[in-house]
């Protein structure tokens, strides 16, 4: 199992966020994490990434307890594709993606020709090679998301964690990013992402983890778990989930 979470709880000083979560993420699949704002999706991801070390319970990646891994070892298993933030520091796309190679370098080493070739390879694979000398800060939302994905791929980890991969993307870019992610699962990657769009989970995810009030409200294959009852429980809105002729399912709001 790529990710195994046992009895995970996490509290901020005055607030319990995650309460006793247990689940396993199957390899080479897409797992969507659903839940209302502030339910702890980001906190869960940060625990998995080793960024919130003082949790209770146990998290294992490929049967290794992450508490026993240092950041460098952890980075070889699991990579993070963050939300895009503005920065005062301007790096080219090439430099940005090169940063993904750091975990594989010695402490005093710098990326060299070998790493640059790898970066070019990954950028070409994602159709981004024409952006290689552009300022990362000037890219469009879709482009910068894909560059962050390129950085994660260069890192060499097989588990990818994404906080709302399609936030602030236009409809076309959102679909293109999701299609690329789905394609990655066929190449051996395991993906965990959070989303607020039930249709995205219906269209692209193999399984769904629904969080409500810090607990697991439902977990399982998308087909079984994604029901109008679940969405009502999570978001307090009435929806209908219809099956189309081709077998796809779609979520339609009933009343606003």
């Amino acid at each position: 199992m790529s990710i195994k979470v046992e009895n995970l709880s996490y509290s901020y000083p005055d607030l319990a966020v995650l309460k006793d979560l247990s689940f396993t993420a199957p390899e080479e699949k897409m797992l969507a994490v659903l839940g209302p704002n502030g339910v702890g999706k980001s906190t869960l991801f940060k625990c998995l990434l080793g960024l919130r070390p003082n949790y209770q319970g146990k998290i294992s990646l490929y049967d290794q307890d992450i508490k026993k891994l240092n950041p460098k070892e952890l980075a070889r298993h699991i990579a993070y594709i963050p939300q895009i933030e503005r920065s005062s520091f301007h790096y080219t796309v090439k430099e940005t993606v090169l940063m993904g190679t750091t975990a594989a370098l010695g402490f005093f080493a710098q990326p060299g020709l070998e790493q640059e070739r790898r970066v070019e390879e990954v950028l070409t694979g994602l159709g981004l090679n024409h952006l290689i000398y552009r300022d990362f800060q000037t890219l469009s939302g879709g482009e910068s998301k894909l560059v962050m994905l390129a950085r994660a791929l260069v890192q060499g980890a097989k588990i990818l964690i994404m906080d709302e991969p399609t936030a602030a993307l236009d409809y076309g870019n959102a679909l293109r990013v999701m299609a690329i992610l789905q394609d990655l699962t066929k190449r051996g990657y395991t993906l965990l992402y959070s989303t607020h769009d039930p249709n995205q989970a219906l269209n692209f995810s193999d399984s769904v983890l629904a969080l409500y009030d810090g607990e697991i409200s439902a977990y399982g294959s998308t087909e079984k778990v994604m029901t109008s009852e679940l969405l009502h429980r999570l978001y307090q809105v009435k929806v209908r989930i219809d099956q189309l002729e081709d077998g796809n399912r779609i979520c339609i709001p009933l009343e606003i």
Partner: protein
Amino acid sequence: MITPRKPKLVLLGFSLLLLLLIFFSFFLGRYPIELEQVADLPNKLIASWFNQVNLNLTPDETVLYNIRFPRILAALVVGASLSAAGAAYQGVFQNPMASPDVLGASAGAAFGAALAILWRFSNQGILLSAFFFSLLTVFLVWTIGQRTKGSRVLGLILAGIMISSLFSAGTSFIKLVADPLDQLPAITYWLIGSLSGVKRSQVLFVLPFMVLGAIILIALRWRLNLLTLGDEQAQSLGLNPQRLRLIAIISSTLLTASSIAISGMIGWVGLVIPHLSRRIIGSDYRYLMPLSMIFGGTFLLAVDNISRNLLSIEIPIGILTAFVGAPFFIFLITAKEGNL
């Protein structure tokens, strides 16, 4: 603002400029020196180093070797050190407005030197005292910053402001009780910042510390890039951000304290030069760190040449760097690009 296609060519160009400036600086000054008069100096120096022969210098050679050489060397290493420290602090704090003054390193060093002058320490004593208090301030700021609630970076900067003002008050008190005939002018002049009267022994005393700090920052310069992304991204990319930040801060403080110990308070270099360097060669520390060092040395040497030659009395270099630095700062915070 981003890395040009051939950053190494830019570095080479700046290095050549620096070498030219160093050469001409030897011949600038009130005492005129003819090139032919000193052509033999390198041979004499080599002979005295290897064969233990006494140096027998002509007046021209004495000026060149005992007065201008230490001063040029001091301008170079102080400029390079302050800029390198500023560049590193900016990455560590993810704030392109950070500088050696942020961590209170300057205020601490000033207090240490003033105290040493008050207690009539020797020159080496002043150096060590400035050095000790500079490190002490940074340690205090670091410890307090770690205990603040909320943003660590902001906490650190606020702690720096508080501790700096505490040590500045201490310096003011020392000035109050200092002997107004000899100690007070010495302290005041030192606080202004000047390279006049720098001795070779002083430069050689701090040089190893500077070299150590510079080597560490150069060796870690790729990783400084990741710190500018913030701790969470840096760590998820396989770094221990707290450890790297600590190493970078200690190295930068070593550079700042050593500089202030021989030159007094020379402000603005650590802010302005890394910033200009970033505009020329981009944010990638692989090129930014070396350029900041080269450019910093060039800048301070050029300004020091002006300070020695502009008026019949020497203008302390700290005043000149402030005249250049303050308007530049205003330009930065009001500039339309708003890239801060």
